[in-house]
């Protein structure tokens, strides 16, 4: 232990609990693989989810270690006013649950991914462009998962920052990749269920424990003392502000209905009615997953303020100030007793795995089903594009591995990364040539899709490692998640919302909307560091949302439709 900050009650007993739990989870995941018969089983569990299991698995995915980390960070840095984000989610999800907005008609299409709808409604180009943007936003969105997860574990285990963090990140990634590539959606569902029960119970107990120990009045007083009125009131001066609240409500509705990992659960539900009911129930989840961790973060702030060495480490002004993500795990590592700490850590790790496996599976299947497979259908030219993209991705993956290995030992990285890329491209191209059924078939075979999906999962894993080691977000983790989510949601909400409810929406409008959503990516740049403070993530995100909606309407009205209205026909039939 290199710092008095990282003290912990985590003992051998807790290690045993965590290891038994995780090993059991991995064995179960591999065992469940026997039930994966075809790609539909792999991606959407054969569309056989009943309501309780669907709720449990959606909750398991949406309450993970990362969710808890970013919400606890909001509680620490913004005080209890961050509860407003939970209220926005409650309203948004209830709205979908009560009306079936988007989810009900979308489930009727019997599709596996959202871009499939793009093709039905607008055509193949929209599907490919939409798939690329969805995968880009989704992978960027999970870019900091590994970093946040490793920070939690280092805080809980008391091993501090530095080399231990990197080793943990690598080890955790390896475990997740092994698990996801073997099991697919059926094992995801089972892991999510177990995690839902364990983490659900642990979260309630830990909250009562934390509030009971620190005291509610103390939490409130500290929030006001540290943040002023904005520590309690989200729209007070220096608080979130009304525009942020509007953005959150939009994000709750759009994210609830269209964020692919959540929508996959709706698409995997037994019927459109089950999909709709799922949203009504899980509004509680989306509400609690914010409110409970925010409370932990606010309680951690009160605890840390009252502990001199922690206050110096977290609240000082120097460059060595610890990242606020460490606050909650450091707080719990000192507060909770051994045994319970192990259960909470095991639940969190399971949460970490379940979120990762769902996300990895989701984005990998989008790349396979919605980018590569449609390109194959286009003919030889499409296949050449798919081959070039795959080879470049392979090169990037080898470069990423080189970066990760070199960074681990703190050696110069640039030449290694360049060499890695140059070596990776021909290697990936050669490998593709060795899989004739992938390259030469007129359409991608099911086996080819399996191979590509599993390969892409590994490639995304490499990206996570590199991005987690390299990138430090110039904002809170939640704002980063919200911005990267908006890159996709702004365009998707326009395309699907208008596509389902407005007959005149067409391909040109959809493509404009999807590209306009990319404006949101400006929000993750460090504008403040560059001295351009008037550009904020809230403004860029709201601008992207408005531009996408206006772009779709204008594009649809100004340009003539070139698409077959297969989706409209489907709606009329059903």
């Amino acid at each position: 232990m290199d710092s008095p900050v990282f003290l912990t009650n985590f003992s051998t007993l807790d290690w045993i609990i965590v290891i038994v739990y995780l090993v059991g989870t991995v064995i179960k995941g591999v065992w469940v693989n026997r039930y994966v018969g075809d790609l539909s089983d792999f991606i959407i569990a054969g569309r056989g989810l009943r309501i309780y299991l669907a709720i449990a698995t959606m909750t398991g995915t949406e309450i993970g270690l990362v969710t808890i980390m970013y919400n606890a960070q909001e509680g620490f840095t913004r005080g209890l006013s961050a509860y407003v984000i939970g209220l926005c989610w409650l309203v948004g999800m209830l709205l979908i649950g009560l009306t079936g907005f988007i989810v009900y008609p979308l489930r009727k299409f019997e599709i596996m991914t959202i871009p499939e709808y793009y093709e039905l409604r607008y055509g193949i180009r929209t599907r490919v462009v939409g798939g690329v943007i969805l995968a880009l936003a989704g992978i960027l969105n999970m870019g900091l998962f590994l970093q946040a997860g490793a920070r939690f574990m280092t805080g809980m285990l008391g091993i501090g920052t530095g080399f231990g963090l990197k080793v943990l990140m690598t080890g955790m990634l390896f475990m997740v990749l092994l698990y996801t590539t073997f099991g697919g959606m059926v094992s995801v569902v089972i892991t999510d269920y177990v995690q839902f029960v364990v983490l659900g119970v642990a979260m309630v107990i830990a909250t009562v424990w934390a509030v009971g120990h620190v005291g509610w009045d103390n939490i409130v007083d500290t929030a006001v003392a540290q943040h002023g009125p904005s520590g309690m009131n989200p729209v007070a001066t220096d608080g979130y502000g009304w525009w942020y609240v509007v953005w959150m409500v939009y994000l709750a509705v759009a994210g609830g209905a269209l964020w692919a990992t959540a929508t996959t659960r709706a698409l995997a539900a037994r019927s459109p009615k089950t999909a709709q009911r799922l949203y009504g129930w899980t509004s509680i989840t989306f509400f609690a997953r914010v409110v409970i961790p925010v409370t932990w973060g606010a309680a951690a702030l009160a605890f840390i303020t009252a502990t001199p060495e922690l206050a110096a480490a977290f609240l000082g002004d120097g460059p060595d100030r610890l990242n606020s993500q460490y606050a909650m795990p450091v707080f719990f590592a000192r507060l909770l007793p051994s045994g319970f700490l192990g259960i909470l850590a095991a639940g969190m790790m399971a949460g970490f795995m379940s979120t990762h496996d769902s996300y990895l599976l989701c984005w990998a299947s989008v790349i396979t089903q919605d980018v590569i497979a449609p390109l194959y259908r286009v003919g030889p030219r499409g296949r050449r594009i798919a081959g070039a993209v795959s080879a470049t991705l392979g090169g990037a993956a080898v470069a990423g591995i080189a970066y990760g290995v070199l960074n681990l030992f703190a050696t110069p990285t640039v030449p290694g990364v360049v060499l890695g890329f140059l070596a990776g491209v021909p290697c990936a191209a050669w490998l593709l040539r060795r899989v004739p059924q992938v390259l030469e078939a007129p359409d991608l075979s099911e086996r080819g899709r399996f191979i590509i999906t599993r390969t892409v999962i590994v490639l995304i894993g490499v990206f996570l490692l590199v991005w987690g080691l390299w990138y430090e977000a110039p904002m809170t983790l939640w704002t980063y998640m919200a911005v990267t989510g908006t890159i996709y949601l702004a365009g998707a909400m326009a395309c699907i919302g208008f596509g389902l409810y407005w007959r005149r929406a067409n391909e040109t409008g959809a493509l404009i909307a999807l590209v306009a959503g990319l404006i949101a990516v400006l929000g993750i740049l460090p504008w403040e560091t560059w001295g351009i403070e008037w550009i904020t993530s809230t403004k860029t995100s709201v601008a992207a949302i408005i531009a996408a909606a206006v772009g779709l309407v204008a594009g649809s009205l100004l340009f003539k439709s070139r698409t077959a209205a297969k989706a409209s026909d489907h709606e009329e039939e059903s």
Partner: protein
Amino acid sequence: MDLAELTIGDVWLVVLGVALLAFGLMVAICGVGGFNDILSLFRTLREDDDETASEQ
């Protein structure tokens, strides 16, 4: 208690209480119901496999 005396801290405490209660109940209900659903899912997938095998 007079509602006019409520502070924002009291409101947030009610919000926390509601979140804990609702979430706890949901975990209990879906924990039991979800277990039955898992058994049913396995049964369905196994039947699908058997059907595929007999067709072949």
